[in-house]
Structures are given as C-alpha cells and as structure tokens.
C-alpha cells in the first residue's frame, strides 16, 4: 500500500534523529529489556541515557535511600526525596517514567547480591552502576552465567572506567588482582556476613559521572546493534584530570573462576570472590 509522505513527519518522532545513525538499531533497542544495578549517580545518568535512547523496559535495583549529598549528581532525585528518605530505585523509576511516556521501569528495593540467575536471564543487557567490588563480582558472574552482556561503570573523582564483558570474552574478574580481593574482604566479617566499617565517601562530581555513563550506554547501544563496532572485552579508561581517554585490552585469565571451568551451575557462594 502506498503511504503518502506527510510534511513535517520527522518532527513528531521522538527517535527520528537517532534513526538517522546508520549502525544504531533503534527497533531492537526499543524491544530490549535492561537491568540497571545501582540507582546512585551513575545509575541516574545511565537510566536517563537509556530512556532517551529508546529503551522502554527497565528494572532498577538498589537497597539504599536518597540523601541530600546525592542531589549534586542525581538528575532524577529531588529535595523532597531526600527529606522523605525515598528509596533510590523507586525515586529513579518514577521520575524516569515521567520523563518519557511509554517507558516501564520496575524498581527493586534490595541488595544486588540477592539477585538470582533468573533475575539476570530476563534481560538483554545488564549495567553495573555499583559502588563496591562484591556487588560487581556478583553481577559479573551472574550476567555471564545467564549469557547476558554486562557493562560495568566505575568512578572516583575525575577518573572513570567502562568495561564491556560479553559471555564468551574476558570478564571483570580476569582483570582483578589482590587489591580487589582486599577491598572485597574488608566488607565481610569472619562469619562471611556484611559488616559495617568506616569507608570515607569516594570523591565524585557530575561531569565525570555524565561522561562515564554516556560511554557505558553507548557501548550498550553498540552491543545491541549488530552493525556496530564494539569494544568486547575492553576497558575504556577516562582520566578527566589529564583529559585523556584510552582503551585497554584485557585477556581471558585461565585462573579466573569464571573461565577455569564452566561457569554454569556455580553456586551463589562461588560467585563471590574467594577470600
């Protein structure tokens, strides 16, 4: 059937400009489901970029509540959220759904470490916007076992990184070392349970958050767009202090627990770092 071209049609389509980028598979993106782990500064920016990029189905996981010190970096949180101590996942989901009609976001108030394999398998892409290495390891191993690409972001001051891990490539644990083990162990008591210990807040500011989240979401768009050049198994390292952005390679480590044997069927305990 012949469809008549309507003058000004391109102005009515929210995603018209994105559809003009050849490699970008806007249709697949709009049909994909994304799991966002962490609803802090990075989570806010990642979700903003996701919903504006055309994603319509997201789940956001965070156990924490909004505090006033979050407001300088979290576009979706308000003074009222801080005053009421709203759960971050709920505040973020509500505000992001209001930004783009037709988007559905499920907030999950809970610890990332309590998510099961089934929680990961439901999604096409996982973003790690986390603030600790234990949660990252859980996300890394479970995404991998579920066969879902995992994109991990991290920031400290004006330094940031984005790591793209696909199920058949190197993973986050391949690039880890004894300093990661030490940090992970600090969070546990001898009983193996989480303990409270003083950890000074990590320095952070919004411009680095914006850059890191943009790089992370861009890689997510590439992973879902078949015709895009991707950074599988590589790490983008951004140093805002020196205005340098580099791409580092990571090899599969045969000693990595996710690669030394089949990761399928690993128990929850095995999915955390050996201490």
């Amino acid at each position, binding site marked *: 059937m012949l469809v008549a071209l309507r003058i000004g049609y391109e102005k009515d389509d929210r995603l018209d400009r994105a559809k003009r980028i050849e490699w970008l598979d806007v249709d697949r993106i709009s049909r994909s489901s994304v799991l966002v782990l962490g609803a802090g500064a990075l989570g806010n920016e990642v979700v903003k970029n996701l919903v504006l990029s055309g994603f319509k189905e997201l789940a956001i996981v965070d156990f924490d509540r909004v505090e006033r010190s979050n407001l300088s970096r979290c576009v979706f949180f308000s003074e009222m959220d801080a005053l009421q101590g709203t759960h971050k996942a709920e505040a973020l989901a509500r505000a992001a759904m209001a930004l783009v009609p037709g988007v559905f976001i499920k907030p999950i108030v809970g610890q990332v470490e309590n998510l099961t394999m089934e929680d990961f398998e439901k999604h096409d892409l996982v973003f790690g916007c986390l603030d600790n290495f234990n949660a990252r390891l859980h996300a890394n191993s479970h995404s991998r076992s579920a066969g879902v690409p995992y994109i991990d972001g991290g920031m*400290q001051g004006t330094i940031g990184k984005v790591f793209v891990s696909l199920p058949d490539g190197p993973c986050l644990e391949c690039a880890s070392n004894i300093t990661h083990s030490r940090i992970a162990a600090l969070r546990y008591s001898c009983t193996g349970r989480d303990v409270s210990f003083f950890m000074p807040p990590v320095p952070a500011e919004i411009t680095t958050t914006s850059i890191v989240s943009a790089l992370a979401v861009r890689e997510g768009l590439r992973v879902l767009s078949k015709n895009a050049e991707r950074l599988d198994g590589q790490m983008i390292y951004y140093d805002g202090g020196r205005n340098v952005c580099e791409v580092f390679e990571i090899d599969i480590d045969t000693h990595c627990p996710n690669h030394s044997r089949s990761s399928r069927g690993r128990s929850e305990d095995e999915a955390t770092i050996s201490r």
Partner: protein
Amino acid sequence: MIALTTVLKVKNAETGSTVDMELEAENTINEIIESAASFWHKDPGAYVLRRGKKVLGGSLTVKDANLVSGDVLELIPDPEGG
C-alpha cells in the same frame, strides 16, 4: 647458578614517580602491585597494572606476561564508585 632477573620500571599514575623493580620469572603481577602500593603508601583501594594498552591480571607471572627488562608498567586506580 645465578637466577636470571628482569629489571623493569613501575610508574605511579597518580604522582608520575617511578621505581625500579628486580623480578624473577615466577614473581606475579599481584606481588608487583603489592610491593609498589606498599612502597608508595597507597590508600586501601583497587589498582590495576598496565603495560601499554594491556591490563595485566593479578595471577600472571613475569614469565606468563612476557615482561622483559626495560618494560615500563603503570599502576592506575581502578575506580570503585558509582
């Protein structure tokens, strides 16, 4: 018999300072990171060691990583915040 050693340079990305390290083939990246972090009194935190564009996994040995005398490795922070 004299064991062959590898002498390489480790650079502190945060300060630009360097230290020479004498290593044996079986020394690991973990040991290099620990020694360098201790030498510079680094705060507790995650760091990675890179050679050029490659990040070296902690369990690799000097031999596995094909490190040779004169190599320059850089200790960079691995940002943990979100």
